[in-house]
């Protein structure tokens, strides 16, 4: 692929991102604008922004890579990423918006009236965010390496620096515009090559022809539950993955922040429905890359499978047409890293700023600092941890690492939110116990994965896809401990329930 053209594409995305960011900065003047864009964003803009932020390196590159190597079972990744929003919609969307919480620790503190639960949540936000940022940086490194041959550190550093500058400079308002723009850029970048391939299709080259031409060992790839690519216990793995993705989405730190920009609970629901449509449209395309990859880039199956989306256009169309399409896809990939990393950095920085930095800065400087500066320092810290982690950890497929972040979220924030919203007998001790038990179990599995999982058998299956046991464990912990400690049920539970569930049209005391 032509590196000059692809670099131009990537450069344009960076310039556009910073440009729209600066435009947003001109608009955002006060601190409240800076954080939440004054809630002046319509459901369609907001849905584009949520989708733009959500479609990460794992969706843009990782899903196609996993399907290319492991076959039909990996289609569950994109299904789960989408169904996660349906679960978010029916379980938490409107109540969460009505809670008025801006971050997960905010929700925990108002619902459970406890600074300890708040602090546990803050730690989890940083942990899940870091686990999610890691594959974004790896994806950026991989893309720059594919395009120019430069070592992976270069691409990761570029994304890290741009994101920190953009987040520190613009805050939420600019991020909303950037994210909305990036959804449409990503969809265009992924869809255009496929449409051109389909238009120019010669017999046997189009996806259906490729699927039909697979025989023997290769045919196994196209079947579900095939253990192709060395994944044991496929039925367990499928269910566990589906649980993690369906129930992890609601606990991702950058997703909740976005919902706060809806004006009310009803708008939060309608936004989510548009998000479902936008995600569904996007996820039609990655499997097509994987299918075509089996025929045009079989060498990637045993190698850099995550680069199949980047490599395919130039493999199918040698010459300028392939270079142009390759540049478009590389630009789209960069949009994916930038948007997701920005959203995560905003979310993590918000937590670091509020819970760690601000009180200390006030003490240190005697109150002689600006709140916005504290947020800027926090943005730098938020990106530093995953960047260091990126330098010290080994290679793990993009979508697998993201899957672990979902598993931790599903085992911690999901029980806290779902039971916190729907169960009035949940106690503060129960909330803390559930977060700790689920968090320790799922994080342990994630760490074992990042630093080297068991080679095979049940041990591997349970560690690679932990959600099927860690999530029920967390739910049971919350319920059992809450039953044992009814004296720590928050005094304001009844009022919280009214605030969470009453439509805004009804005039009640919202505390």
């Amino acid at each position, binding site marked *: 692929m032509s590196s000059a053209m692809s670099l131009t594409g990537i450069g344009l995305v960076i310039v556009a991102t910073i440009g729209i960011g600066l435009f947003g900065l001109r608009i955002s003047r006060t601190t409240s604008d800076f954080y939440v864009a004054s809630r002046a964003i319509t459901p369609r803009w907001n849905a584009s922004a949520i989708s733009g932020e959500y479609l990460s390196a794992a969706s843009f590159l990782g899903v196609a890579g996993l399907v290319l190597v492991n076959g039909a079972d990996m289609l569950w990744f994109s299904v789960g990423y989408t*169904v996660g*929003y*349906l679960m978010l919609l029916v*379980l938490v969307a409107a109540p969460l918006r009505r809670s008025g919480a801006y971050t997960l620790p905010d929700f925990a503190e108002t619902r459970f009236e406890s600074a300890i639960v708040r602090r546990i949540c803050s730690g989890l936000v940083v942990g899940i965010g870091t686990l999610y940022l890691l594959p974004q940086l790896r994806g950026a490194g991989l893309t720059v390496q594919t395009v120019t041959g430069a070592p992976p550190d270069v691409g990761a550093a570029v994304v890290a620096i741009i994101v920190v500058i953009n987040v520190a400079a613009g805050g939420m308002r600019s991020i909303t515009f950037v994210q909305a723009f990036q959804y449409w850029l990503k969809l265009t970048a992924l869809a255009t090559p496929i449409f051109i391939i389909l238009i120019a299709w010669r017999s046997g080259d189009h996806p*259906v022809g490729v699927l039909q031409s697979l025989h023997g060992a290769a045919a196994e790839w*196209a079947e*579900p539950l*095939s253990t192709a690519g060395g994944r044991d216990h496929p039925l367990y793995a499928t269910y566990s993955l589906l649980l993690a993705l369906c129930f992890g989405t609601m606990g991702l730190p950058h997703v909740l922040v976005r919902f706060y920009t809806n004006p009310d609970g*009803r708008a939060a629901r309608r936004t989510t429905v548009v998000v479902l449509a936008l995600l569904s449209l996007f996820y039609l395309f990655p499997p097509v890359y994987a299918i075509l990859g089996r025929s045009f880039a079989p060498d990637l199956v045993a190698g850099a499978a995550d680069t199949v989306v980047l490599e395919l256009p130039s493999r199918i169309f040698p010459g300028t047409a392939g270079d142009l399409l390759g540049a478009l896809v590389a630009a789209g990939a960069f949009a994916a890293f930038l948007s997701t990393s920005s959203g995560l950095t905003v979310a993590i920085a918000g937590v670091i700023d509020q819970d760690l930095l601000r009180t200390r800065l006030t003490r240190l400087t005697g109150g002689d600092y600006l709140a916005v500066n504290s947020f800027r320092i926090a943005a730098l810290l938020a990106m530093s941890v995953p960047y260091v982690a990126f330098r010290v950890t080994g290679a793990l497929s993009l979508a697998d690492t993201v899957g672990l972040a979902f598993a931790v979220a599903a085992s911690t924030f999901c029980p806290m939110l779902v039971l916190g919203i729907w169960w009035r007998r949940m106690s503060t001790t129960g909330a803390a116990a559930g977060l700790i038990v689920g968090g320790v179990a799922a994080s342990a599995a994630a760490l074992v994965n990042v630093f080297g999982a068991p080679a095979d058998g049940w041990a591997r299956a349970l560690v690679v896809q932990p959600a099927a046991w860690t999530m029920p464990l967390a739910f049971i912990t919350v319920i059992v401990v809450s039953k044992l400690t009814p004296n720590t049920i928050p005094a304001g539970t009844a009022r919280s329930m009214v605030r969470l569930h009453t439509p805004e049209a009804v005039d009640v005391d919202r505390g």
Partner: protein
Amino acid sequence: MSSLIQSQLRLTLAVIGGTGLILGSIPLLFWLAPATRTFAIFGLPLPWIILGIVVYPVVYVAARIYVRKAERIETEFTEFVGRQ
């Protein structure tokens, strides 16, 4: 108030139950009836049609139905409170 929460919760559980039943039975179908793993329609294997295309409109329709019913519950509640 508690009747509002209860009817919302019933609706939520119905949607989760319905989607869970549909999605959850797909791997089970492939597991119990291996012929479905390779069965093809117009040259495309059934698993790819289901997981690559068909699930998305199903999920979208489920979301639309949920939002309509949830809003109706809230409207009725608002009117009921307003009458009092």
